[in-house]
C-alpha cells in the first residue's frame, strides 16, 4: 500500500531536516503504529503521506503512484482523524457529517448507523459546542471513516475516551482493518499500540531506529524469565526464574508444589520499556 524510500523533508532550507532519510513500508490491511515524542516528526510524516506537503526528497508511493503527483481523486480514498477534534461547533453532529459527506462521490457508510454505533444518535441534532471531548472524538472518528477510505490516518484516536468508548473505537478500528482498510496510527498510548498494531515504528528526531511487530519487540528486548508471586506463612513473596530449563528447575518446581501461588508472569518487556531502552527518551 505505502512504500517510503529515503524520505527527506525540510520546512526551511536553512533549518535541519525534520525527516532524515526514513524508509518503511505499510502493507494492505495492516495497522501500522507510529510512536514518538512530540516534535519527532510524526505529524510531518503524516502530512507527507496525506499529500499535504509535496516538497520532499526521496520517494513516497501509494499503490505505486508517487504522492507528489496525486490528483484530487486521491482524497476520495483517504480518511484522517486528527488528535484534536476538528468540527464546526455551531453546527449539529449530523450537519458536520453531512457537510463532509457531500465532498465525496464514493460509496459511504450509512451515517445514521455510524451515529448509533458510537452512541451519538440521540445527540445528532445537538450543536457540537455542547459535546464533551469524548463525544467530539467519536464524531471526529466517524467523520474520518464514513466514506470508507482504503487508507485511514488516526492520531490518538482514544484520547479523552472512557474505557467503554475506548473499547468501542478499538473494536471498530480492528473491524476496519479486517475489512481491508490500511491504518496509519499515531499514538503515545502504549496499550493501544500493543493491542492494535500489526507493526510499530519508533520515530526519534526524524529517524526510525526500530520497525517491527510488538510481539517480536517484546521477545527481543524482554527478559526470558518468569516471576512467581506466592504466599508463605501469610506473607507474599516473589521469585524470578530463567525460562530456559524451567520444567526441570528444582527450586521452581518445589516453590509451585509447596506454596500457594498467587500469580505467574513471563517478563517480556512492555512497548514503553523498549521505547526507552532503544531511544533513551520517554514518550510523553
Amino acid at each position: 500500500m505505502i512504500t517510503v524510500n529515503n524520505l527527506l523533508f525540510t520546512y526551511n532550507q536553512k533549518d535541519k531536516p525534520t525527516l532524515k532519510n526514513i524508509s518503511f513500508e505499510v502493507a494492505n490491511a495492516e495497522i501500522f503504529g507510529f510512536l514518538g515524542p512530540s516534535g519527532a516528526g510524526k505529524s510531518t510524516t503524516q502530512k507527507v503521506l496525506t499529500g499535504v506537503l509535496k516538497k520532499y526528497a526521496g520517494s513516497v508511493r501509494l499503490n505505486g503512484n508517487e504522492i507528489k503527483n496525486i490528483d484530487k481523486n486521491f482524497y476520495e480514498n483517504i480518511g484522517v482523524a486528527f488528535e484534536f477534534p476538528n468540527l464546526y461547533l455551531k453546527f449539529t453532529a449530523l450537519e458536520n457529517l453531512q457537510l463532509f459527506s457531500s465532498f465525496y462521490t464514493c460509496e459511504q457508510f450509512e451515517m445514521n448507523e455510524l451515529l448509533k454505533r458510537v452512541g451519538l444518535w440521540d445527540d445528532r441534532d445537538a450543536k457540537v459546542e455542547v459535546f464533551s471531548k469524548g463525544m467530539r472524538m467519536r464524531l471526529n472518528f466517524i467523520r474520518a471513516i464514513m466514506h470508507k477510505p482504503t487508507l485511514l490516518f488516526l492520531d490518538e484516536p482514544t484520547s479523552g475516551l472512557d474505557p467503554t468508548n475506548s473499547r468501542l473505537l478499538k473494536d471498530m478500528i480492528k473491524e476496519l482493518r479486517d475489512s481491508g482498510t490500511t491504518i496509519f496510527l499515531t499514538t503515545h498510548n502504549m496499550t493501544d499500540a500493543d493491542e492494535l498494531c500489526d507493526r510499530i515504528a519508533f520515530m526519534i528526531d526524524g529517524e526510525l531506529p526500530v520497525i517491527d511487530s510488538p510481539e517480536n519487540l517484546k521477545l527481543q528486548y524482554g527478559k526470558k524469565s518468569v516471576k512467581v508471586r506466592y504466599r508463605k506463612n501469610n506473607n507474599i513473596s516473589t521469585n524470578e526464574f530463567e525460562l530456559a530449563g524451567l520444567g526441570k528447575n528444582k527450586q521452581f518446581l518445589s516453590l509451585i508444589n509447596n506454596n500457594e501461588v498467587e500469580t505467574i508472569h513471563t517478563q517480556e518487556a512492555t512497548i514503553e520499556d523498549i521505547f526507552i531502552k532503544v531511544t533513551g527518551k520517554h514518550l510523553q
Partner: protein
Amino acid sequence: MTTKSNTHQSTSILVTLMKFDVRFQVKQGFYLVYALVSALYIVILFNIPFPARSSVTAYLVLSDTSIIGITFMGALVLLEKQQNMLHSLFVTPVRLGQYLWSKAVSLTLLALLASALIAYVPGGLLPNWPTTLVAVALSSLFFSFVGLGISASAQSLNDYLAGIMLGGFVLCLPLVLYFYFPLLSLIFPINSVADLLLHSTETLPIIRIVLNCSIIVVWIFIAYWYAFAQFNKHVINK
C-alpha cells in the same frame, strides 16, 4: 456496518462550500450585525435631502459595504482556525482554490445584500443600479482575497486588525490621486471601484465601465494569487 450508495453528487463542492459558508456566517451573527448596520445607515440616509443623499450613499457603499470582505474575513478564518477546521478540509477532495473562492463569494453575497438595501431603500443610488452592484461585487471579491491573504498568517484578531490597517491604508491611499488624475489613477483597484460608484447617478461611457471592470478583475486575480500563496505558506505547509 452497512453501506449506502452515493452514486451522483448533484452539486459541486464549490456550491456546497458556498452554501455552508453563508450558513456559517448566519450562525456566527454576521448577517445580524450587518442588518443592524444597514438599518442605521438607512435611517441616516432618509434624513439627508437629495442630491446630497446620492453622494453620501455612494461614499458609504465605497467605504463600507463594498469592502466587507476585508473587514469580516479575519473573523471568518480565525473562527475556522480556532475550531481546527482548516487542516481537516484540505485532506478531503476540497481544494484550496475552492475554499478561497467560497469564502470570497459568500462574503460578496453579504456585501451585495447590504449595499442593495443602503443604495435602494432610501433611493440614493436607484438610477444606474447595475453599475453599483457590479462595482460592489468586484470590489468585495478583491478585498475578500486581500483579507484571506492577511488572515492566513494571523494568529489572533489583533494580528489581523494590524494587517488590515496596513493593507487598507496601502490599498486606499491611491484614492487621493483619483481627485487629481481621474483617468490615469484608474490603474489602482480602489479608484476603479470609486469611478463606478461615484458616477452611478449619471451614465458613464460603456468603454469606461468595461475598462474599470477589467482593471478590477485583473486585481482580483492578483489578490487571489496572493491569498493562495499565503495559505500555502502559513496554513498548509506549516
